[in-house]
């Protein structure tokens, strides 16, 4: 993990290479993370790969920050295998305009993972070769892992509501 100073250096170089990219840096529990502008994600990841050696993208996952705005977040976990360094790149988009450029052309591992974020949160990835639902049925409506999506489920059947249960047993 880059230490605090290393993190600031990386952020500084990113900011100078891609102006306006870096919003803030966080160093928490020994791990560094950089929050960037959503529009710059491909450039930032490319720069981190080329200039700083983070050549493996381990995970792309989504977060819902409800009720804070902007609500939907996408996190990229980068790994430098040579120096065993990890860095998180975070970005946040609002629900009204949930478009992020897909990094799948540069990082093939993001294919299924971006589809999962689309399925579960509704973030549209522009430039993704095949953006459709991966875990839910293809014609499902709604994005389940948003915080305001109801958990669903069946009422637990006890003796008192057995007969009026949802038609499970006769």
């Amino acid at each position: 993990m880059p230490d605090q100073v290393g993190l600031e250096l990386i952020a500084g170089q990113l900011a100078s290479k891609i102006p306006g990219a870096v919003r803030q840096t966080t160093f928490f529990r020994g791990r560094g993370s950089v929050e960037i502008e959503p529009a710059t994600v491909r450039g930032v990841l490319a720069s981190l790969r080329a200039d700083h050696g983070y050549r493996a993208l381990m995970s792309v996952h989504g977060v819902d920050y409800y009720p804070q705005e902007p609500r939907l977040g996408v996190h990229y976990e980068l790994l430098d295998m040579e120096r065993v360094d990890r860095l998180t790149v975070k970005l946040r988009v609002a629900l009204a305009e949930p478009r992020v450029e897909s990094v799948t052309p540069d990082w093939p591992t993001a294919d299924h993972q971006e589809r999962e974020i689309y399925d579960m949160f509704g973030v549209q990835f522009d430039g993704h070769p095949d953006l459709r639902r991966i875990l839910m049925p293809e014609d499902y409506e709604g994005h389940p892992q948003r915080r305001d999506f109801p958990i669903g489920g069946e009422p637990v059947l006890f003796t008192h509501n057995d007969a009026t249960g949802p038609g499970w047993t006769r």
Partner: protein
Amino acid sequence: MSTRSRYRAQEESITLSPLEEQIAAQRGGETTELLTLNIGPHHPATHGVLRLLVTLEGEIVRELKPIVGYVHTGIEKTAEQKAYWKVIPVIERMDYLSYYFNAMAFCGAVETLLECEVPKRAQYLRVIHLELNRIMSHLVWLGTSALDLGAISMFWYCFRERETILDLFEFSSGQRMHTRYFQVGGVMEDIPAGFEAKLREFIAIMPGRADQYADLLRRNEILLQRLRGVCPLDEETLLGLGVTGPLLRAAGNPWDLRKAAPYTSYEDFEFKIPVGTVGDNYDRFAVRLAEIYESVKIIEQALDGLPEGPHITEDRKIALPPRHELATSMEALIHHFKLVTEGFRVPPGEIYYPIESPRGELGCFIRSDGSSKPARVHMRDPSFVNLQATAPMVRGAYIADLIATLAMLDPILGGIDR
């Protein structure tokens, strides 16, 4: 139904002619007809409910599209509804062959957020159970893969050893699978008397049994013909696809989180990382078989060096106090009450905690908002990412090789679909 859903219309608009034209161009104009076949989700050879759309030219696979989601359980969303302690049984059922690893990733992430120290004895006990689980997962893989390839007896031999391991799990935690043994801050209970003796018996016989499996399979003519040189994939492509674990090690890259970024006292143990050379199916098979021996070594070292001490953190705000304290100490009672009803609160923050599971890097991402329930739990499951490597591997191979490759890939659909 006269109205077609958008999905059906899209499905009908898929045309294979670009692919056919591509193949024709490669062949100098000779056209061929492609057949798209649906394998699964109910199929004896897919490991779990995996659906594959295979485009075949004769018997050669030209294109492969995996369709998953048939065992999607909403585990991550369920975890948001429960206190941290109660998430552990839910999150264990994700990758259902390596349940200790799921719990380890989650507990490790929560402990990092809490900045909680795990006692040394608990760390060693965790290592013992993790490595036992790794052996068990590899045994099930070996049994079912050999079953796919036709070596049916292997299934019964491997499950014989698996029963011994499950007996050990039942001895230490009371439950065979999904034991809820790992808790935040340590392990649920100390190992009972007699566990160490039984475990030593097991590790005395396991290398011999693994030798027997190796003798049965390693030089078997049929296995060699089905696995040697079949569906290799080079390291660069694998790294681009985010593949880790035995698949990457079979291609020659010795990346193992137990050595690279040790957690839970893995740095105290001496063990080797088996690495393959070519990256074909045979190497994947050999790497997993060799990992069984290494895991036995780790368990033996952990057992020899097992330190005395508490089995869970002494911080009463995180771990339940022992029952005998409840009768005498008011604070213990209050802590017990708070922990059972509400659970401990975790300071706000986000953390990603990766460990090495039998299939690759298993990472747990937790976002905490300061309350007693996690605000987001995401498991980076290795099988989910490794599945993307199936298509590059099998393009150009026979459909029988596809079955063998799926077996060697070791996908666990519970982890893929979560």
